[in-house]
């Protein structure tokens, strides 16, 4: 089983996010970037598959900025290969264009299974897996977990509303958007990453410029607007607790 895990980095939500002057994007200068947490889940699931039933795992990233460390980290965790798709693009590249570049690469690269994170915090579309499936003409499922290899085919689980589960079995090649791995993503010591970055090379694949795709454009980006119904209590835990108790008393909700 040859697996490609698609990884990207996203703004670190711990930092304060500022809008840029156009009001249609984030002020990227002040942002720090971290690997998308769902991609970590997808990578972990792929590595667990490798450990359970043997697989060749490649981490694939578009060169939209500083992705090298992310790829070295994947190698240090146990991926067999790291591929960087290089071209003239940056982090603002829309998902649909990303999907096209990825699909062009994946089409001829001989993978049996492509795993993506279910979504990423920078757009919350959760579209890449579906788009890739469509562009490649491969079966696709998203929001999946418990991926297993079963005599050449792939089994996985989707969770439905009301606590129901569906178990799937699909032929390969296949695209999966992974919700969660069977175990929390593993830690890899920094020394190991450094060692890998000295000894291993990233495979660079020329992927050309931005493809033309019809895109939905962002008109305006803004913070959630308060509707005036919520009261935020300031202060430390004790003050907030006192305010809560006072409210409960006021509403006669405390016996």
């Amino acid at each position, binding site marked *: 089983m040859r697996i490609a895990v698609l990884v990207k980095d996203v703004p670190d939500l*711990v930092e304060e996010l500022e809008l840029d002057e156009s009001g249609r994007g984030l002020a990227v200068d002040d942002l720090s970037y971290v690997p998308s947490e769902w991609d970590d889940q997808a990578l972990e699931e792929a590595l667990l598959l490798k450990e359970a039933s043997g697989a060749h795992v490649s981490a694939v990233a578009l060169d939209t900025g500083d992705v090298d460390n992310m790829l070295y980290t994947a190698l240090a*965790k146990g991926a067999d290969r790291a591929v960087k798709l290089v071209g003239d693009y940056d982090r603002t590249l829309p998902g649909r264009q990303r999907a096209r570049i990825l699909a062009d690469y994946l089409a001829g690269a001989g993978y049996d299974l492509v795993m993506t994170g279910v979504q990423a915090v920078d757009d919350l579309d959760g579209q890449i897996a579906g788009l890739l499936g469509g562009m490649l003409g491969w079966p696709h499922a998203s929001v999946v977990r418990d991926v297993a290899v079963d005599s050449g085919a792939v089994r996985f689980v989707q969770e439905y509303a009301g606590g129901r589960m569906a178990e799937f079995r699909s032929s390969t090649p296949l695209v999966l958007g992974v919700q969660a791995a069977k175990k*929390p993503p593993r830690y890899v*010591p920094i*020394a190991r990453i450094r*060692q890998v970055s000295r000894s291993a090379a990233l495979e660079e694949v020329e992927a050309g410029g931005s493809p033309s795709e019809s895109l939905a454009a962002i008109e305006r980006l803004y913070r959630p607007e308060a509707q005036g119904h919520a009261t935020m209590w300031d202060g430390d835990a004790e003050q907030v607790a006192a305010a809560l108790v006072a409210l409960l008393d006021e509403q006669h909700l405390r016996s």
Partner: protein
Amino acid sequence: MTLRTMLMAATIVVALASVGVFSVRGRAIWTVLRRTRPVVRWDRIGERLLSVGTQVFGHRRMVRIPLSGILHYFIFSGFVVLLLDIVGTIGQVFRPGFGIGPWLSLAVDVWVALVLVGVLMAVYNRAVLRPARFHGSDERDAYMILVLIAIIVVGIVVHESFYPVVAASFFHVADPSLKSEFLGNGLYHVWQNLGWTTPTAGLVGYTVGYLMDIGVVFAFLAYLPYSKHFHILLAVPNIFFRNLRPIGELVESPPDETMAIRSFDDMRWKDVLDLFTCTECGRCQDVCPAYAAGQPLSPKMVILDLRDRLVSDWGRSEADAPPLAGGAVSREALWACTTCGACQQACPVFIEHVPKIAGLRAALLEDGDVDPAAQKVLVAWERQGNSFGQPARKRPEWAKGLEFPIRDARKEPVDWLWFVGDFAALDPRAREMTPVVGELLHRAGVDFGILYEAEVNSGNDALRIGEYGLFETLAQKNLKVLEKATFQRVFTTDPHSLNALKNEYRKFGFDKPVFHYTEAFLALIQEGRLPVSPVPIRATYHDPCYLGRWNHITEAPRELLRVLGVDLREMPRHGEQSFCCGAGGGRIWMDESGIVERPANQRIREALALPGITHFVVACPKDVSMFHAAATALGVDDRLRVTDVTELLAAAVGLRATPLPAAMAMGASE
């Protein structure tokens, strides 16, 4: 064949056999030692000899448990005297007429008596008192050795007592019986009364006594390296080769690739020597907070399990053999360690547990086996530079409410550079005290500054979790700004940061003096720069491990409290023998399942046992949070107030009211 020829032949045979059996194991150990990592322990010979003097001949650590210390002194000193006896006895057989003289013979008999008393005390200790620290030690081995020792010393008296009988007939020397051999002489009179002074009785009696002595001595020698009693030979070198560098430095120099211990080859030679020197005394287990909390860690068992694993295959493990980390020593045991260092401090033969535990943790970490909550902290350190996962710009926010600006040490020269640390900067409770520290420094006219958002965690805990690479990354980030800043000394309230800056950053060339706030404020008060009025409370003081044990700063905080007029009462475990709060070594972030009673709760109960104590004084931002939680959990926070030294200083200079426990505060307002 005469008696002499027979005894000479027997002596040579047992001596050769003994040396043979001994060297089989000796060679095996030597082979392992030669493959280990280097570490320099030959320097500062004078100091090394001095510590052999105080620790071996002075039994300095041994006498911390008086009964064991005394009984051991009897037996230990008996071994020195035994050497005289061996020379005298073998000499007597090989060169008729040879003797060690009346005085040395007297000494031998006196020590025979002392050793027997020591053996009886040891049996009483093991069989009747049964201290818990022996739990897990090899009891059979311990008794075996006591029996062998008893046989040897009784044998000495037996052959002495028959010597007058055989001297003339078999050794052809005049009866040399020495009055000073009072035990032998006494027994000789018994034989006389029993009529056992015939040549045959003499021959049998002397032979039995000789073999009980010399025969068993050689058997003992052969047995030594297969038993915990190897320490008889190894304790002296192990103490000689003890760590004389600042003990707070966990890693001496940057490791080649990794600090992980996966095989015995990854250990330093001293670590392997440690394994064979362990006396199984359990003193380390007795003081271990993880063991006391009911967790599956005993520092003694870490050493013994590693030793047993080493002798099972001599480090030549098959590929599928269980690993050292997570096999020979369980992962639960390794992650339970707070790296408090109490074990090392208690060990009479200076075994170093913490570097082994940290190296084994590093191996677990490389395999991704780390507590999920601790993993989050490692990631937060890497990304945000603090354990709270807060953005860097939040780090200096505590300084916002101050009426004076704190200087930016990145931009202008300062006298004191204040390294704030994660907890003092970001922990909701500890952070309340941080501006007060600033006010105190300001009031004392200290020219100080901070690194604002450029400071990151010191890396002390990351290193102790086994993450050397992350420690180095954090250290380099700090050093980059520290090297550009101009300052005379580093000031910090955080013992963990202090330890890293003082001991761990040296390997990167950082050598500025580092002061804890207890030391610094004491000096300011003594110089008259910070006038104080008395804070008349009765308090006990908890020594943080990274201040007291790892950096020997125990006097300054006490002197400071005295200067503040505090009536200080000591808990039984204090100073360098303090009991850990349970937070160190990354434990503060880890899963607590398996803990029967938290070390911090045990500590609060220890304080409550002191009469009339109203304040539990701490000098570490992590302790503020640990002991507040413990006092609340025990429901005693209304009568025992966990107080940072800062609060007392603030009261003494009139910045704040004296902090009082709720019960007293109510009493005061009524």
